[in-house]
């Protein structure tokens, strides 16, 4: 069973967001990295780029193929994790420690539509 971390919000596409004030760190879950297999490339978004809830955030490539990562919430990219350019495998090793982008959130109420730890756990169990 994939690891699910407390204190984060999750999407059905297996992204997580860790909200800190008006901003949120976004990454992909343990379930997602496991399904993708060895991650070999992360095409990071641009700082300043606008993102919308459910819209494209970036592309993560694994040995199996390319996967779209969607933004859990709307806003503007404030920062990207440049470590992933040279070490994309960090997402496999530590999916919850390897954020992809920091999003300046434009609508905090959007977060209410995301899953908490328990909801995401039963969602993943339903997929097994």
């Amino acid at each position, binding site marked *: 069973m994939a690891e699910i971390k407390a204190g984060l919000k999750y999407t059905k596409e297996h992204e997580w967001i860790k909200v800190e004030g008006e901003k949120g760190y976004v990454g992909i879950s343990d379930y997602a990295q496991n399904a993708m*297999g*060895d991650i*070999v*490339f992360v095409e990071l978004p641009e700082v300043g780029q606008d993102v919308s809830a459910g819209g494209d955030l970036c592309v993560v*490539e694994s*040995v*199996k*193929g390319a996967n779209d990562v969607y933004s859990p919430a709307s806003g503007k990219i404030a920062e990207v994790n440049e470590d992933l350019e040279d070490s994309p495998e960090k997402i496999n090793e530590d999916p919850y420690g390897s954020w992809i982008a920091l999003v300046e959130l434009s609508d905090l109420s959007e977060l209410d539509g995301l899953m908490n730890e328990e909801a995401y756990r039963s969602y993943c169990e339903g997929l097994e």
Partner: protein
Amino acid sequence: MLSQEKLIFEKSRKGRVGVSLPRCDVPGAPSTLLPESFRRSEDPSLPEVSEVDVVRHFTNLSQLNFGVDEGFYPLGSCTMKYNPKLNENAARLSGFSNIHPLQAEKTVQGALKLMYDLSTMLCEITGMAGMTLQPAAGAHGELTGVFLIKAYHRRNGDEGTRTKIIVPDSAHGTNPATASVAGYDVVEVASNDRGNVDIEALKAVVGEDTAGMMLTNPNTLGLFEKDILEIAEIVHGAGGLLYYDGANANAILGKIRPGDMGFDVLHLNLHKTFSTPHGGGGPGSGPVGVSRRLLPFLPTPVVVEKGDGYSLDFDLPDSIGKVRSFYGNFGVLVRAYAYIMSMGAEGLLSASENAVLNANYIMKRLEGEFDIPFSDVPCKHEFVISGEKQHAENGVSTLDMAKRLIDHGVHPPTIYFPLIVHEAMMVEPTETEGKETLDRFVDAMIEIAKEAKEKPEIFHDAPYTTVVSRLDETRAARKPVLRWTEDKG
């Protein structure tokens, strides 16, 4: 013993020469004959090597290659069948290889007749009314076909409302990509638990906004869509057209025709189904066939026959226009023509029957060792193994097993496709392989399943028998170094 070959530039030694050029017999110095702008200011940096250096270099490089002339290549969804050498002889005939597309028609009657006859035969094989030979590959054929669908809706005045193309979730990735490039929105329909199109799900998504549906039959799981007539009725009933992705046509030659299944437009991959070489990027050929109602929109020109011979007809007022310079990859057309003529109708039928027989033989022999979804029904030309069991029990992924196959002398099949099977490995033996080869492959796979159980740790560094083992494929795709540059430092 194979070893990594240095670049020919790295073998260069100043002053070494492998050719002897005759003295220039044009009177006058080059500087007086050529304008300044056409003259080099410095010598080109060509490798300086002897003849034997060149011969050894390229001979050694050729031995690092793997092709269907060396060994088994069961590349699912890609029909890597053997390329009969007779085709090559035909393509090298001077009347085909030493002509130019701008020659006067009366001087290339043989080439035009070949194109005309090939179109006619492909129409007969597929049950279509007309064919263009221009597209240079399968995906190019798809795009041409979807443009034809668009032209049809445009003429009916509902181009603006019919904005969606339906694709099953088992489709080749090119289908949604093609629809998207052609300006359509893609609607995915899920497969049912038998790996076929879910009829109810299809009914739920068709409507007045349906431009068409793209389908492969048999599908990428190697399963025949038995409900095809009902599918055609549903799509046509909604006013859409049905596109046949011909990548899997090797399973149906002489058995059933896409035209009879209700398809309006299709592409064929000559480089798969009709034995012309592919790999290394081409050249391919993806002729597109259409039903009667799409004939007016075919790309120009088409070859026509008049009483006094063959000519190119550019006068098609409703045509979508040209999709490629001149008339397509002509050399590939010659090879496909030679194949069809040498096989005959019975030969093509027996090719399909043997392709299906070979696939089922391998599937049945591997059933005990691997998870094979849907192995309770006969497959067509290919089937999909799931490496889920080895992955879960031994931590050995399908990628690892594919790499290990190389050590067993087999080119790995397609992996991680179709997306609806986890840890997928897609096997297509084709008709040209004998039972001994199939058995060798099965034995290698059984050995690999055993290795996965007993010594999973060996997989991580496989393959061991190649000059290079695991390459950084992503960096190679993203930041390729395509040419040697002189270090002037």
